[in-house]
């Protein structure tokens, strides 16, 4: 081994490397997103996950090794979720005025997400493990993992599809909503939060504080609603 290789092997095992790499990739991805004028394919979460995944696979780095450094970023998800209370607080009046519309939009989106997932997967001949793991995929990952487990699915498989759903919704959701001529910031935010949980909320916050607040609301309410009705489908899935 050359000295340079030795240094590389040493550094690649350090948490600081994974941490720096993740931050640098994010900054680069964000630069591309802004340069592209906010194109769907240039969503910074999509680009960052893609680049880092390819890098880890190509360099044969274990995910666990990477996560030792990346966990410091991951940890901030908790306090950031709590921080959503601030944009929500500023929109409380509007939320109260539009409570029926919020409830109707939430229930429709939540049921559409679960029902269409189950029907399509069944049409493709997927087994009960996939059905149970993917049913809660629009819901924020801690709740989705618990629900998947309760239904007899796999929590890690559920988590991955929650993330993929979030990336998909956050990247192409704004494009789809433009196509459907849904311009109302609250409507866009609620849709992104219900369909694409926290990653959709991150995208919504880039549109406006109001859009982000409604996304946070949609995310929280959909977690509650899905946790209430999905376990009732358990018998249906196993039967």
């Amino acid at each position, binding site marked *: 081994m050359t000295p340079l290789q030795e240094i590389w092997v040493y550094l690649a095992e350090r948490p600081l490397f994974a941490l720096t790499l993740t931050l640098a990739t994010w900054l680069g991805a964000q630069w591309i997103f802004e340069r592209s004028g906010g194109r769907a394919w240039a969503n910074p979460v999509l680009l960052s996950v893609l680049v880092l995944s390819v890098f880890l696979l190509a360099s044969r780095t274990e995910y666990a090794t990477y996560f030792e450094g990346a*966990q410091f970023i991951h940890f*901030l998800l908790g306090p950031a979720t709590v921080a959503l209370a601030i944009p929500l*607080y500023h929109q409380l009046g509007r939320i109260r005025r539009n409570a029926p519309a919020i409830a109707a939009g939430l229930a429709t989106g939540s049921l559409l997400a679960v029902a269409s997932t189950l029907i399509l997967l069944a049409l493709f001949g997927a087994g009960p493990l996939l059905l149970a793991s993917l049913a809660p995929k629009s819901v924020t990952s801690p709740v989705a993992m618990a629900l998947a487990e309760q239904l007899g699915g796999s929590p890690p*498989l559920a988590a991955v599809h929650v993330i993929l759903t979030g990336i998909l919704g956050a990247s192409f959701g704004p494009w789809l909503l433009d196509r459907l001529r849904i311009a109302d910031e609250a409507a866009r935010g609620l*849709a992104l939060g219900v369909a694409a949980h926290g990653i959709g909320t*991150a995208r919504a916050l880039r549109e406006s504080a109001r859009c982000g607040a409604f996304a*946070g609301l949609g995310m929280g309410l959909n977690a509650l609603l899905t946790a209430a009705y999905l376990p009732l489908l358990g018998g249906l899935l196993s039967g």
Partner: protein
Amino acid sequence: MLAALAGLFACQLAGEFLVRALGLPLPGPVLGLLLLLLFLVLRGSVPKSLEVTANGLLRHLGLLFVPAGVGVITQLEPIAGAWPGLLVALVVSTGLALAGTGWLYARMAHRPKGRKA
């Protein structure tokens, strides 16, 4: 700023504690969000430093999902085996949920008087 950060952590901690103590089907941070919201409603305003700190964290919310997102590489095998069905289910169901929620909300929130929703 440090006080604001401590406040956010404290809300999360209280949330995690209550979720476990009461067996609620919610993630701790989401209950923490509700606790902070309750505090803000009772107080009637947002402390300046909390506003600044929260905005700082939320400006890069997307970044915080990247480490979990890279976890996709741990599940490549089950995905590879069923990818056509998974892809169709992900794309169609996410699209339907977005369209259904957005369309119905926009329709119901815009009342005849032309008030902006």
